């Protein structure tokens, strides 16, 4: 049996084991259901706020203020001499709001703090400013002139798709993190779980650890990517649902990204993302190989490392051509997300892109070997988790046979 056939067999086994279209479909339906409830519920709740709330105002109030208030409230005028009676009524009925002016001060009487207090304060502030301007003899026109911004005509020579590329690059980084996080749980089941159910010795007698590990990494990567595609479909469906009610077409997002022109960039970003997912899955596989029991291992926190480096890579946005950014775009732990971001916001030489990709590919190549090596040693350690010293000894041993796991018979 060829190595390739064995790797493909393991890859498909892992993919079919973890990616269940039926469950994903149920997930989509449940998400849509929850989203619909949230959306329609929100609209229903918001519709209540559209009804103007009632506000009683003393009839000796400035007419201009009354007209301003009528834009946001259902204003009822009350003879000023009935003020005391009305305030007493609010206390008795436990509802209602009453506003009166006393010189430069406004008095508000209400049973409880009204939900529209912010709106009311805004109107009163605006009215107060206008009244003060009038007292100082400043006309509306003069004020408008003072606050008018400087006139600026803008002309930029960089292509206009930089923002779009930036969005795409960050989107791919987010997708990569999502895919890696989805893989997070599967790695424990696929590797640590198999160590726990003690099937590994039988498996390794049939397949070289490296082929087994390659199959695992590829299968889980496929699962992660398939899950992310599913989530993207959910997002798209949710967006389409929103567009039905908001009048904002979800497809306008694609229009604004102008895909035909961005296609080569998108493909490049996609390649970096896929390689990045493979790299991180090889990393997670190596960590999972070290762990015997996820509930009692201090090494589980290493699973959080990918997100740390992806966040770090976004620092490139500040100064895409500075030394730190160049380093991050070459360094394998950050390059999968940092290089696309650099490409998006700056002009990067082709050899830098190719070099960064090659370094990442090389790092993945060696990381998967490391994962297989750790796995090979750890399955023979019955009841004991490999320590970092033992990992180091395993790595520095001239031949695998030189590393001596404890006697297990």
């Amino acid at each position: 049996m060829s190595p390739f056939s064995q790797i493909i067999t393991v890859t498909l086994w892992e993919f079919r084991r973890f990616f269940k279209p039926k469950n994903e479909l149920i997930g989509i339906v449940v998400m849509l259901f929850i989203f619909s409830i949230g959306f329609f519920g929100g609209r229903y709740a918001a519709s209540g706020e559209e009804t103007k709330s009632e506000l009683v105002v003393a009839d000796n109030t400035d007419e201009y203020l009354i007209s301003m208030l009528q834009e946001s409230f259902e204003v009822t005028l009350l003879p000023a001499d009935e003020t005391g009676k009305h305030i007493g009524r609010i206390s008795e009925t436990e509802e209602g709001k009453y506003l009166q002016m006393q010189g430069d001060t406004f008095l508000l009487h209400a049973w409880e703090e009204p939900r529209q207090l912010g709106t009311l304060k805004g109107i009163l502030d605006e009215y107060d400013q206008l009244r003060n301007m009038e007292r100082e003899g400043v006309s509306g026109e003069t004020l408008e002139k003072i606050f008018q911004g400087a006139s600026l005509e803008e002309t930029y020579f960089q292509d206009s798709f930089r923002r779009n590329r930036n969005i795409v690059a960050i989107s791919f980084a987010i997708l990569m993190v999502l895919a890696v996080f989805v893989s997070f749980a599967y790695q424990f089941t696929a590797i640590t779980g198999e160590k726990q159910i003690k099937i590994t010795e039988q498996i390794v007698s049939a397949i070289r650890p490296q082929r087994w590990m390659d199959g695992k990494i590829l299968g889980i990567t496929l699962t992660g990517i398939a899950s992310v595609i599913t989530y993207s479909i959910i997002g798209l469906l949710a967006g389409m649902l929103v567009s039905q009610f908001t009048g904002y077409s979800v497809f306008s997002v694609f229009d604004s990204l102008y895909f035909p022109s961005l296609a080569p960039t998108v493909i490049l970003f996609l390649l970096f993302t896929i390689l990045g997912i493979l790299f991180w899955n090889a990393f997670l596989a190596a960590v999972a190989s070290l762990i015997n029991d996820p509930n009692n291992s201090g090494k589980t926190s290493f699973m959080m490392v990918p997100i740390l480096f992806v966040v770090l890579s976004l620092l490139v946005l500040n100064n895409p051509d500075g030394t730190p950014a160049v380093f991050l775009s070459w360094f394998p732990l950050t390059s999968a997300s940092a290089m696309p971001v650099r490409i998006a916001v700056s002009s990067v030489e082709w050899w830098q892109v190719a070099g960064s990709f090659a370094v990442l590919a090389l790092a993945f190549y060696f990381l998967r070997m490391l994962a297989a090596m750790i796995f090979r040693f750890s399955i023979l350690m019955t009841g004991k988790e490999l320590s970092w010293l033992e990992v180091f000894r395993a790595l520095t041993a001239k031949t695998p046979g030189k590393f001596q796991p404890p006697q297990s018979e």
Partner: protein
Amino acid sequence: MKAMNEKETVLRIDLLNKRFKTVQALRDLSFSVDRGDIFAFLGPNGAGKTTTLRILLDMIRADSGIIAWYFNGQQVSLPDPPLIGYLPEERGLYTDLPVIRSLVYLASIRGMQKNEARTAAMEWLERLDLADRANEKLMALSKGNQQKIQFISSILHKPAFAILDEPFSGLDPVNQEKFINYIRELNKQGMTILLSSHQMTLVEKLANKVCLINRGESLFNGSMSEIYKAYGNKHMVDVTFKNAVPVAEIQSFDGVESAVGTDPGTARIVLQSGTRLAPFFSQLAGADGVTHIRSHSRNLHDIFITLVNNHQL
């Protein structure tokens, strides 16, 4: 390299050595398995059996020595997966998946076509009265039935050479007998079998060759007839006394090689080769308080214990 009869020998191990941190796990271990053998690889706990099997399958490397496999007229250091079947001592299968799915997967990574694997798996499940449980999760099966599934997974792909480490553990006596017949049948079909087990009475029924190791060292390596010829030609007499065993008195009898107290009031006596039983029993009858006498030839179990107990490094 020595000249080999490649038609007969499937596996040859020469002067295998392996040391762990403080333990010499294997010391100059040598044996060979011929095509069609049922080869019993025996030893007490910690003797180095599993270490040897793991070295054979390249899970760990030996410090020195030669391992040579011969298949299809060619010598290889590690056979292709389809040629080997392995039932590890440490059992484990996918407990949360349907039985048939696990069996097909394990056979397919050894190169068997999926349809063929499914058909073969169903045939074996029927033979072991488990066909109706093919789609159940393994965890729903009893320990004994899980053991049967584990056995199927090791031979389903019809390997030329099967390594079975403790194949009878977890089985009741009825199923142990069934497994003996299955192993015989597989052997008749051409499968060479390397068997490691503690159940000597079962091994005795199956094996034609035996290698006994202790502390990583070979104590005996040869055919079953040779081991009986070398160590099984002495009579053993189990004697029960009403009171304490008069060990010193028994040892003074003519023809006695050794006498040890096994349980309170019971002694096991080993007679020298060629000792006639009638004169010995006459002497024994004179001893005080004899209530029960049973004489028998040494079986594999007795030989195993004697050789291991006498083994000194």
